[in-house]
């Protein structure tokens, strides 16, 4: 089956999203364009593929049902990332409640079965890195994932997370120090 190729121009797409007759096709372009970056962002948060799939679906459904609230004041990507991060945090908290884990505890439970995950093909060192990331506080974990894997600019992160650039740099620095000490303790 031939795949439909979309040309993506954010300004045009945002304009089309605000008209009843073009909104759906414009949103299809948004889904096509943002599925992968959002998926990887969510996947690094929730670790499991099936969970990431659920959260990604919820993210897009939430974006679609509240598209009327998006007036183009912020970038579409910022708005979608915000929804994705909120959905991921909500999902993790729900999972913690289901597993009788205190909400204040770290997220190490997410990586307990990483070795057995069908959709993980990393080596020992990568498993160790995921374990080190999982014990970071929520904010540091998000900042580390965005900066280290996505190489996202601090200014963009600042818009998504609502934190100053200085605080984000400090968070990233602390995250790296904690990961390094995790590696040295577990050598």
């Amino acid at each position, binding site marked *: 089956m031939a795949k439909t190729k979309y040309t993506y121009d954010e300004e045009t797409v945002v304009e089309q999203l605000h008209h009843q007759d073009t909104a759906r096709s414009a949103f299809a372009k948004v889904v096509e364009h943002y599925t992968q970056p959002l998926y990887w962002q969510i996947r690094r948060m929730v670790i499991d593929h099936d969970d990431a799939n659920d959260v*990604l679906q919820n993210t897009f459904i939430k974006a679609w049902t509240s598209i009327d609230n998006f007036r183009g004041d912020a970038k579409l990507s910022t708005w979608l990332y915000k929804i994705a991060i909120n959905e991921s945090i909500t999902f993790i908290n729900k999972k913690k409640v289901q597993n009788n884990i205190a909400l204040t505890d770290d997220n190490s439970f997410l990586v307990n079965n990483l070795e057995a995950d069908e959709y993980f093909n990393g080596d020992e060192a990568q498993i160790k890195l995921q374990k080190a990331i999982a014990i970071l506080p929520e904010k540091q974990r998000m900042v580390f994932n965005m900066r280290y894997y996505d190489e996202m600019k601090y200014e963009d992160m600042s818009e998504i997370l609502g934190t100053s650039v200085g605080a984000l740099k400090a968070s990233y620095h602390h995250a790296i120090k904690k990961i390094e000490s995790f590696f040295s303790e577990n050598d």
Partner: protein
Amino acid sequence: MSQIDAMKQEESPILKKLGKEPGFNVPEHYFADFSKNLMDSLPEVEITEEVKPSRWVRLRPYVYMAAMFAGIWCTMKVFTGFGGDQKKAVKIEMTADSPNSGAKAIMQDDKRINDNAMLNYQDSINAGIQKTNINR
């Protein structure tokens, strides 16, 4: 600090050794299938289309404001119009070159007001006399 310096500072020997591949993968055709399945499952939503305001709606506040200032100006003109001649007279006399022209002007102005009052008083007396004569 330059961007390169900042990047260097962020580098960690352990992370450098690990690389940036987290080791996650996805089922085959996952992303293509995801988009299709998602679009099929999206509910209908109603979009409130933004109505662009007409030129009159945009200009209305300014027109109202202009009308308000015009109204205030007219009201002031009506009130100042009552004593316009007297003030004019006073102003002319004040421009005279005598050193006490200001005081003189005020005195003359007071005198004129007193004369007017006297005339009014005289008129009312005359009217009273006439009224008395009619009654008789």
